[in-house]
C-alpha cells in the first residue's frame, strides 16, 4: 500500500515534471545564448508571478520526485532499508522544498531587490 502510494507520487510528479523540464531546458538554452548575467535573469523573473507559479510548482514536484528515487536507490544499491532510510530521504525532500522555495523567492520576490 505504501509502495503503491509512493509509486503514484513518483509517476504523478514525473508526468507533471516532463513539460516543466522541457520549458526549463528551453529557457536555459535561450538564456545562455547571449551569455548569462544576474541582471538579465532577475530582470526577467523579478515580480513575475507567472514564473513564480511555474518554478514554485517545479520545486514542489522535484521535492516529491527526487527523494522517492533516492529511497529506491538506497534500498537497492546500498541495502539501506527500514525507517532510517525513509526518514533520511523524507528529510532530504523537505530540505529541497525549503531551499527551492527560498530560491524562487530570491529571484522573484518583489521585496528582495538590491540591498534588501
Amino acid at each position, binding site marked *: *500500500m*505504501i*509502495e*503503491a*502510494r*509512493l*509509486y*503514484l507520487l513518483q*509517476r504523478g510528479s514525473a508526468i507533471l515534471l516532463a513539460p516543466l523540464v522541457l520549458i526549463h531546458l528551453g529557457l536555459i538554452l535561450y538564456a545562455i545564448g547571449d551569455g548569462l548575467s544576474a541582471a538579465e535573469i532577475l530582470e526577467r523573473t523579478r515580480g513575475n508571478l507567472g514564473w513564480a507559479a511555474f518554478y514554485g510548482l517545479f520545486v514542489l514536484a522535484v521535492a516529491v520526485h527526487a527523494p522517492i528515487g533516492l529511497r*529506491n536507490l538506497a*534500498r*537497492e*544499491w546500498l541495502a539501506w532499508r527500514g525507517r532510517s532510510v525513509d526518514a533520511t530521504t523524507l528529510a532530504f525532500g523537505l530540505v529541497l522544498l525549503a531551499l527551492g522555495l527560498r530560491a524562487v523567492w530570491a529571484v522573484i520576490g518583489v521585496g528582495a531587490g538590491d540591498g534588501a
Partner: protein
Amino acid sequence: MTDETLTVEIWRGKDTGRFETYQVPHRKSQTILDVVTWIQRNREPALAYRFACRVGMCGSCAMTVNGRPRWTCRTHVSKIVGSGGVRIEPLRNLPRIKDLVTDMTPFFEKWQAARGRFEPSATRSEPMASIPSDDPERRIVDAGIECINCGVCHAACDVVTWNPDYVGPAALNRAWTLANDQRDGDRAGVLKAVSEVGGCHACHTHGSCVEHCPVGLNPTAGIAGLKRMTLSALLKGSLS
C-alpha cells in the same frame, strides 16, 4: 562436426566451489542439456543437475550458460559457441544446493506472496463458466498463461538481485493473468497482494525478463498492467 570436441566448464560445489573443465564430443543438433548429460554419464557420475521432459515443457532444466539464464534442453550448442567454449553455472538469484541445482523454494514462495494461485468462484457442481476466446480480458490471460515456471526471468531480473522483497517477474506475470481472469473469485485480493512491499511497484522496467523468457512471454508488460490496475484501485480507494 562429429570430430570436434567442446571445452565445457561446469560449476562444481555449492556457494564455494570451482569450475571443472571437460572435453565433450560435439555432435550435430546437440543441446546444452545433452552436453551436461554426456558429462554426467561418461565423466562425472556425481554431477548434480535437474531435468525432466527434455522438450521445453516442464521448466526444470534452466541454468546459466555463458552468463545468461537459459532453458538448456532447447538451447543448441551451436547457438552458444562462437569461438570460445561453454561455461555452465546454476541459475542466479536462488540458493544453491549442489553443482547446477538451485533451491526453487523461494521462487514458489514468492508466487504465493503475489497471490499467484487461482481462487475459484464456483464449485465443481456448478456449470462451467463460458468465456469466449476473443473476450478482451481472456486474450490478456492467454498472452501470459504459457509460463513454464523455469525461473529464467527470476534469474535474469536485476531488481530480484537488488531487492530481497521483490517477488519477481514470474510471480507477477501469474498475478496479472489472475487479475484478468473472470473466473477468479478474489481479483481485488490479487491487486492488494501485488501492492505490498516487493510487489509490482518495485519493478523498474529494465525488461530483462522479456529479453530472456524462453517461451516469449512479456512479464514487463503484465507488470505495467498491474501498476495501472493497482493505481486505479488506489485512486478509487478499493486497495485498502
